[in-house]
């Protein structure tokens, strides 16, 4: 049923409460004054407004985003099966999600700053300016929480956050979903586990 018919059947006009409330026009005016944002499909009006606000906000700067791009491609590089994190859109995802989840703002900004400081200490340059081998020299020290040097623990925390955001961003992208070979999200008839898989695991529907 179309939304308009649904509302009509509910005893309402497409505008709202015309059947019932005399100040129909007032509601309409109120909403049009309040709401410059168009409601996209699948979003409520409140969500559309919140997302428009978030998208207009600028938090991470170009240098920070460039650093995220390099780091995310170290975490998830291209291989024979799929592209790299940045090729899947991870940078844009992280740019948005740290604004959407403000608890990430300081750990991300501060973590990137920590990385540049560490890079400066070791090589006299920012992380994006050093060589690939020099970057790995730092990453190897912060990528393994169980064995990392104690004095780099803040770097380890930052890298763990980057790993998590990169993986989530990559594998929830179109490229990442194809990489995982997720087969669902499409109308189908579920008929049970394929026979060869049942056989592989020694299971059956008769047991």
């Amino acid at each position, binding site marked *: *049923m179309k939304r308009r018919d649904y509302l009509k059947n509910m005893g309402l006009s497409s505008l709202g409460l015309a059947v019932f409330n005399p100040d129909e026009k007032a509601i309409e005016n109120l909403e049009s004054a309040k709401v410059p944002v168009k409601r996209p499909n699948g979003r409520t009006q409140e969500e559309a407004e919140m997302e428009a606000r978030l998208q207009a906000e600028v938090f991470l700067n170009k240098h920070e985003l460039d650093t995220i791009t390099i780091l995310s491609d170290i975490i998830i590089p291209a291989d024979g099966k799929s592209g790299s994190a940045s090729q899947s859109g991870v940078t844009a995802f992280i740019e948005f999600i740290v604004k959407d989840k403000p608890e990430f703002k300081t750990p991300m900004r501060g973590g990137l700053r920590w990385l540049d400081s560490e890079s400066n200490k070791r090589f006299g340059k920012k992380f994006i300016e050093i060589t690939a081998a020099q970057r790995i020299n730092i990453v190897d020290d912060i990528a393994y929480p169980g064995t990392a040097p104690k004095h780099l623990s803040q770097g380890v925390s930052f890298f763990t956050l980057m790993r998590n955001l990169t993986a989530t961003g990559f594998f929830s992208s179109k490229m990442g979903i194809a990489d995982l070979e997720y087969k669902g999200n*499409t109308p189908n008839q579920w008929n049970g*586990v394929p026979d060869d*898989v049942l056989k592989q695991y020694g299971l059956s529907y008769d047991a």
Partner: protein
Amino acid sequence: MINSSIYIQSQQEVFDVVIVGSGAGGGMAAHTLTKAGAKVCVLEAGQPFDPADPKDMTQLKWPYESLRRGASSSLRNFGDFDAAYGGWDIEGEPYTRKDGTKFDWFRSRMVGGRTNHWGRISLRFGPDDFKRKSIDGLGDDWPIGYDDVKPYYDKVDKMIGVFGTNEGLRNNPDGFFLPPPKPRLHELMIKKANKALGIPTYPSRMSMLTKPINNERGQCFYCGQCNRGCSAYADFSSSSVLIKPAAATGNLTMLPFAMAREVLTDPATGLATGVSYIHTGTMQEYTVKGKIVVLAASAGETARLLLNSKSSRFPNGLANSSGVVGKYLNDSTGASRSAIIPSLFNRKRYNEDGVGGMHIYTPWWLDNAKLDFPRGYHIEYGGGMGMPNYGFGWGIEGLNGRENFTRDGLKKAAGGYGATLKEDYRRFYGSYVSFAGRGEPVVREDNYCEIDPNVVDKYGIPVLRFNYKWSDYEVKQAKHMQETFEEIIHAMGGEPMGKKPGADSNYGLADPGRIIHEVGTARMGDNKNTSVLNSNCQAHDVKNLFVADAAPFVSQGDKNATWTILALSLRTSEYIIDQRKKGNL
């Protein structure tokens, strides 16, 4: 946007019935009463919702169609595609807690209420669930028994559709079931492990149409996304399955954006005359008149409405001469654990979305007389190759360094980066399983909600204040859940994730309210001094006032509440029709 000229707008029409709330209880009452020819007005605090309307539809969307990749937000607490507008905290609609106790209150502000996103687990209460006091001396018996409700469960099964199997279990009664979907791979593994442990496993009982039942609703197409609302109307939600056909009768006036403030009464007769409400867009106040008022606003909101409906004749709130309104509030217990199953690493890919939720479950199977806690729980199972979403891969540093998770005989340090890390994510995908216990608490008078004396919401309506504590009964039950989960995990050859929840965390027992099964705030009973409603959910004090949500429940059962809300609402609606015909209302 508060309009300073708030006024009471009187309406001309007097409805046969005014219903507050459009969820399971309100929807069923509206459906039954409009079909019988009554002129019905339903007030809903939230906005319209139709999962087949592209504006509202999120079904079959991909995570990358969400800026936050499906993560939750303050406006959708169960994820960016979930069909619940609202959540634990709604701006301008606070609630409070007393004396440092905990209670979280989930509200959906939309036509159909929380039925739009619920888990569709559709369990009847069994004979024992109505008579627990007679069995263990704790809490209270219901004034009705299974045989009183059975005919209505039967009608609900046939009207709405539920899949499952008749197993002849005494306290998990048979019904009229559509064919269940076959178990998924991890579910077969759980079933096998459970068999060895003596834990029974049965096809789940859920309200998706695995076969069509009428021309208005389609058949399940196995996308696994019932929580988003179904564009084919192949699962149960009140909006699609009850309100929509009720509207088609021409007898329904459906008012969204209508936040009920109080039930109005005639000072002379003490009868309900209608409901006042605030329009959430204009902040104007209106009244809608009715010969009969049915409250189905949720256990919390119904208690709030009654307690806020004070008058000189009803100084403690409406229908509250017993002082029981708000008391005996109770939510299901809940505890959970997850695990990873190494034999599923690198599994073959195929579409196993299935229905939205589990294909198997375990009803309560033990005898509490032989245990140190008095009430049971059922187990819900999760897992499989679901759609990757926000959160995917999170915390891999806790997994990929484990002793027996090595690949090609290479032990590697946890965490890492690069090609081997990328391979780890692929390898672990689809290897997780999860276990959730949902149990019955022992109902207590001193777990309650009341009106906060100091706080109002943005509509000027006094808000609820909760006071709720779990007892040792529930904590011991949660401990048993955790032990059971680990037994199953080990029998599957799996590894539990995280640390086993211990005494310091009440064994993972969820805070009250978190399972969103709150019931009991206007309980039924034969004694008007200890109950709010009679056994037909009619107020002892006000004969044209009824309650049709989970507020009348005397106890929770180790089941989910919705199927019983539907059956009781149908029973109450038929009682209203009968009493009207007899001239008693």
